[in-house]
């Protein structure tokens, strides 16, 4: 119990490891919060979609600051500036300044304004965090360790994004379940976690993380090279497999290259190939692809249903609704059925990583379905005047 409590305390304190000496607990008002984001958001219209998933996610973050109503699909809408902040300046794709809404429904935010720089490269954001030029920026999970080593204060959420290997249906080679099982068994998840993610992630065996479902421990994450070789030996014709990954995602590229190495070690012929983000839709030229699936909810049923709805049409897996409410047994059984089909091979769970300046307080790493809690953030040392300044 004590060990678990210690781990729990350590986990929630992770983000605050380098916070300076603390002098308060109640939020202070005032100050300008400086934020940098990678995507260049061109429009704040909630209905505006982009081919770039990062831009869509960033726009949702901004919308959550401006609108008070959240739709069932997770997007935000409502009267302009009905949320905790109002737009003061807007330069599409480059810069935005938001000011605190004095009449916000949940109360006025603690900071006076937020200055957002868009279209920033990951290395530039990391540098600005090191130099104290920004208060908040996203950090790719594979760079989290490096950021910590460079003295950046890092906030890490619970792992809530699944990186999985998905076998699209309709490909002659991978319609043979033995091929799928062989490749899934060949993957060394531990090395992905240890070397690519620098231990900032968890090996995944099921479709939900342990902290959500409570049953992830029932799924094996160990590689089984012998089983992979045995299955592959049964396949005639020595087929050559193509593994697709998002061309704009360095993490997916690294993982794909690692899987290629694992596959070759077991005799499986596999080649990694980037999938362009933009351009005309073409028939899938890959036998398997890497996919990121972010949990929309911490609740296991909702998260699993979302995943199945996404994966179902692609991999032709059972996406029929689970009972509502669903028991842990129901959820486990469905997960097991999907994993046992080898249409989806869960690889790793990824946390959301943010870099923070030392003056940021009340930052809580957003959980699944949550947005940045910038209305609750306050800044150390930027408080409103507190009256007389002299001390005894």
């Amino acid at each position, binding site marked *: *119990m004590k060990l*678990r*409590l210690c781990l*729990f*305390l350590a986990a*929630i*304190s992770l*983000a*605050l490891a380098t916070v300076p000496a*603390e*002098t*308060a*607990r*109640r*939020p*202070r*008002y005032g100050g300008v919060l400086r934020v940098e984001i990678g995507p260049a958001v061109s429009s704040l219209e909630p209905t505006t979609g982009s081919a770039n998933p990062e831009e869509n996610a960033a726009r949702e973050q901004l919308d959550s600051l401006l609108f008070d109503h959240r739709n069932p699909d997770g997007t935000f809408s409502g009267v302009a500036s009905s949320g905790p902040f109002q737009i003061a300046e807007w330069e599409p794709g480059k810069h935005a300044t938001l000011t605190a809404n*004095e*009449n*916000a*429904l*949940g*109360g*006025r*935010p*603690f900071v006076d304004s937020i200055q957002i720089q868009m279209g920033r490269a990951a290395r530039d954001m990391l540098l600005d965090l090191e130099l104290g030029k920004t208060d908040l920026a996203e950090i790719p999970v594979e760079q989290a360790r490096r950021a910590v080593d460079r003295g950046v204060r890092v906030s890490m959420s619970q792992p809530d994004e699944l990186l999985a290997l998905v076998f699209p249906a309709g490909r002659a080679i991978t319609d043979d379940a033995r091929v799928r099982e062989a490749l899934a068994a060949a993957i060394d998840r531990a090395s992905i976690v240890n070397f690519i993610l620098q231990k900032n992630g968890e090996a995944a065996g099921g479709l939900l993380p*342990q*902290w*959500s*479902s*409570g*049953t992830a*421990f*029932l799924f094996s994450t160990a590689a089984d090279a012998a089983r992979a070789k045995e299955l592959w030996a049964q396949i005639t014709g020595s087929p050559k497999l193509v593994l697709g990954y998002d061309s704009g995602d360095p993490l997916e590229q690294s993982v794909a290259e690692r899987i290629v190495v694992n596959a070759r070690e077991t005799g499986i012929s596999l080649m990694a190939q980037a999938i362009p983000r933009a351009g005309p839709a073409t028939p899938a030229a890959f036998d398997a692809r890497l996919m990121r699936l972010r949990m929309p909810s*911490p*609740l*296991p049923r909702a998260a699993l249903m979302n995943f199945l709805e996404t994966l179902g049409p692609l991999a032709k897996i059972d996406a029929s609704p689970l009972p509502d409410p669903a*028991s*842990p*047994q129901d959820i*486990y059984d469905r997960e*097991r059925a999907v994993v046992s089909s080898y249409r989806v091979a869960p690889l790793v769970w990824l946390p959301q990583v943010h870099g923070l300046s030392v003056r940021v*307080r*009340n*930052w*809580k790493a957003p959980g699944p379905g949550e947005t940045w809690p910038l*209305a*609750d953030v*306050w800044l150390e040392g930027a*408080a*409103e*005047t*507190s*009256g*007389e*300044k002299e*001390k*005894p």
Partner: protein
Amino acid sequence: MRPSRQLLLSHCAIVVLLLAVFSGATLAQDSSHTNQPAQPEQAAPLAQAQLPAKWNDAVRALAEKIAGATGSPRRISLDVRNISSLDSSATSLIRQAIQSELAANGFKSGAGGLRVRVTLSEGTDGYIWVAEIEQGDAVQVAAVSLSRSTNSDTSLHAAPVLQKRTVWEQADPFLDFLERQMMTIPISVFTVLERDRVAMYEGSTGHWGHFSGGGFISISPGSRDIRGRLTAPINGKIKMFVATTMCANPPFLYCVDSPGQEWPVGDGWESHYAPGRNYFTGLSAKWVTIDGGVRPFFTLSRMEYDHGSDWIQTELDGMARLYSFSTKPRAAFSGWGDDLASVKPGCGGSWHVLVTGTGDWTQVDYIQLYEINNERPMPIGQRLEFSGPILSMWTSDDKKSARVVSKNLQTGMYEASIVSVSCSD
């Protein structure tokens, strides 16, 4: 200079006039899923019967599933492991309970039998107990779930010791609470003040269940760290302060909102709530003159002596300052949180100050007891740890304890606790 007192209603607009004690059905229905009295869940030793009832139900359900999976009673080899936040004593009890339940179903335990591994796990929805039943090469999985609840958290330390008694928990945030015995009828009422409503429950400590009334409070948009306080009933009437709104009840809930709303911050002392903020400005006191204006503050704690009163207030610059009828502080203390409460335990006779810890709402918190000695704070005893931030702390009316509202970061529940100073050695 004595700050001028405003007449309570002179600048007030009556913003809400709601019937207070509307029949409990509507609110009770809303509350039933989120509010519950905190009940000790810490298992007592050695017998299944001493497990909480719902744990027994879960044990029974899991044993039935194991029995169903195995088909007929036989010898089994049971292994129980815990990967949840349950402690070892609870794990041991659950193991014994499962063994007992399986025995009652005709199973005998022993080496070489059918291997059954039970894992005590947990997820978002609560505890999940999973049985893996090995039958040859196949493994059958059976799972049961049960919700988490607060464990008994009364704790004792070396003298003088802080004691915490958790009396309530609910999923929604609340600002203050009050336990009181009704004067005219033999029942107790537990009042919970939330940001926009007040709810009252009948029952007794640990068993507040029956919703008996309440009402909604309409407040102006204000702070995200809104402050609220309930005052002891005078002639059966409770006053409720939420930011710049003051409400009273019974016979019906009526509220007035005023930008300069005065709050009680000590016996006969009042201060103005800063509109749209989370702190107070100014100080007025009956019968005495406070020289000059005081700094804005979050919390003020007053200590009465024969020769007069001292007070400590936590200020916006993160310092706590000690005053004696002057706006010139006598001493300043650093490293304190923003909430404090003065208490006078019955045994010692001197005033002590309960002080919360530093940090923010994402961190665990604590209360440290201090005695102010020659203008220096002397920590006494050990800290009383909390599983999350303390959101408010007010001195109780008996001056011997404090009402504490905190958030449990493990369960996500908001908890009401009475913290008192024990005088036993």
